[in-house]
């Protein structure tokens, strides 16, 4: 294993890269949301993540819980809609699980991410196949855990997670939405990628790219 731990600076870099990606893809996310939602996912995510990055730049976090609790609260209070509480809860749970540490080892990162997923489920009550961000988050974390169990290092596991995330994102196209505003479309939601699934895929792209730079 070449990379046993991940530092708070690398995790800050992850969130910064995620902000870059949602900013680059803002029109794409909004376009997806126009088809089956209310056309605000791109602007909501960029508003929230740029506030997160401003906060990181103004006062860099010293510990993992400080970083993610700050990011989670910023999203919860600046985004509104459904994506603010869902992404916010994801980061808040990561922070609470990681605790006041400067680095995470691979099992520590895996369990923090897993707790984040638990938070999303508790808040959004989504299940597999409901056509939500859960359909990316769950398979990505399964791939992450499987890669670590197969003695991959953290960057390789992150790449495996991103690969599973893309598959999960694309698979939402064929699904019938059962949660959120898209669910009112019924059959008409089929044929469109879920915008939340697309932004969650960017989250794993950001993680893979940030660690890939090592």
């Amino acid at each position: 294993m070449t990379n046993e731990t991940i530092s708070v600076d690398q995790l800050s870099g992850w969130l910064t890269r995620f902000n870059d990606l949602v900013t680059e893809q803002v029109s794409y996310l909004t376009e997806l949301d126009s088809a089956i939602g209310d056309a605000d996912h791109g602007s909501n995510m960029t508003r929230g993540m740029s506030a997160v990055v401003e906060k990181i730049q103004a006062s860099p976090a010293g510990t993992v819980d400080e970083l993610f609790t700050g990011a989670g609260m910023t999203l919860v209070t600046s985004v509104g809609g459904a994506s603010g509480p869902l992404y916010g809860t994801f980061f808040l749970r990561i922070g609470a699980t990681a605790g006041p540490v400067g680095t995470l080892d691979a099992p520590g990162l895996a369990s923090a991410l897993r707790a984040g997923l638990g938070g999303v489920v508790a808040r959004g009550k989504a299940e597999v196949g409901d056509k939500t961000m859960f359909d990316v988050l769950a398979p990505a974390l399964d791939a992450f855990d499987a890669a670590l169990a197969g003695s991959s290092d953290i960057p390789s596991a992150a790449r495996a997670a991103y690969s599973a995330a893309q598959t999960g994102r694309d698979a939402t196209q064929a699904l019938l939405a059962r949660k959120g505003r898209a669910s009112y479309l019924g059959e008409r939601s089929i044929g469109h990628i879920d915008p939340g699934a697309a932004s969650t895929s960017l989250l794993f792209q950001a993680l893979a790219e940030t660690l890939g730079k090592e």
Partner: protein
Amino acid sequence: MKVNQEVPDMKKLINSPETVLADSLAGVAAAHPDLRVDHANRIIFRATPKAAGKVALLSGGGTGHEPLHGGFVGEGMLDAACAGAIFTSPTPDQMLEATKVVDRGAGVLHIVKNYTGDVMNFEIGAELAAAETGIKVAVVVVNDDVAVEDSSFTAGRRGVGTTVLLEKIAGAAAEEGRDLAAVAAVAQKVNESGRSMGVALTSCTVPSAGKPTFVLPDDEMEIGVGIHGEPGRRRVPLAGAAEVARQLVEPILSDLDFTGAPTIVMLNGLGGTPLIELYVMYAEVRKILDAAGITVARSLVGNYITALDMAGCSVTILKADDDLLRLWDAPVNTSGLRWGI
């Protein structure tokens, strides 16, 4: 005085899409001395809080449904309304702040329309209030839209017209001095007894998008539309008022038996339809209800829960009883509803 010379790129009376909410709150504050606007937190309060010991009512939601909710803040209805961005739920810190300010020691009822974002943001707001303050919070989630058929396979029925009637009736119950559990029970009863259905003749235009949310051909209408321009049950050929009334009222009557009780009926405009057409529609709705043997005890016709500039209307029918009628008739003094004072 310096005048903003910027010309918006759509035909709306705005300075810019980014400032619509703040600019409209400035107008609310200037027009209504009975209200106090917290511009930083985007909350509309009563200028004079109600008496200590009474239950307070808090609602809120995305902007674009005016007069809901800010127009219903005042004596006999809400104590505060949190304003979100257009069609986007307000955030939990707003609900926390509003809950702290309006509590008069008897607890706060949160009135939430059933949309995924609204429910989650109010939920976090209530959790924060419980953790930080210990204020008692009760919640009623309004879900009265019969257009949503498969509610077990969706986010559930949406909160629409019944919200207006609920805020009035629960507000009167709180004003009478009923405790939090009793006020919440009245609110729950209104939600369970109210049903709504809407129709759009045109889309609405969200200022930040600058173009209509959907395209509806000149000879079609969308039956069962929501209040955010989200699609309805089906698109059908445009029809006259009598036929539109039938398509709105029938699904409501087949969802709940309204016979044998006095009802309150609201014919609500969605923002882009003149009052004369709403009265034409109301006459048609009454013919259907009379023929069905339904007793209409009270009526409300006008724009109360809108979807920006959408043309169209919704019908709400509430199965009432003597208590609910008495609470409906109680004095109310808000910019959106005012009688008995």
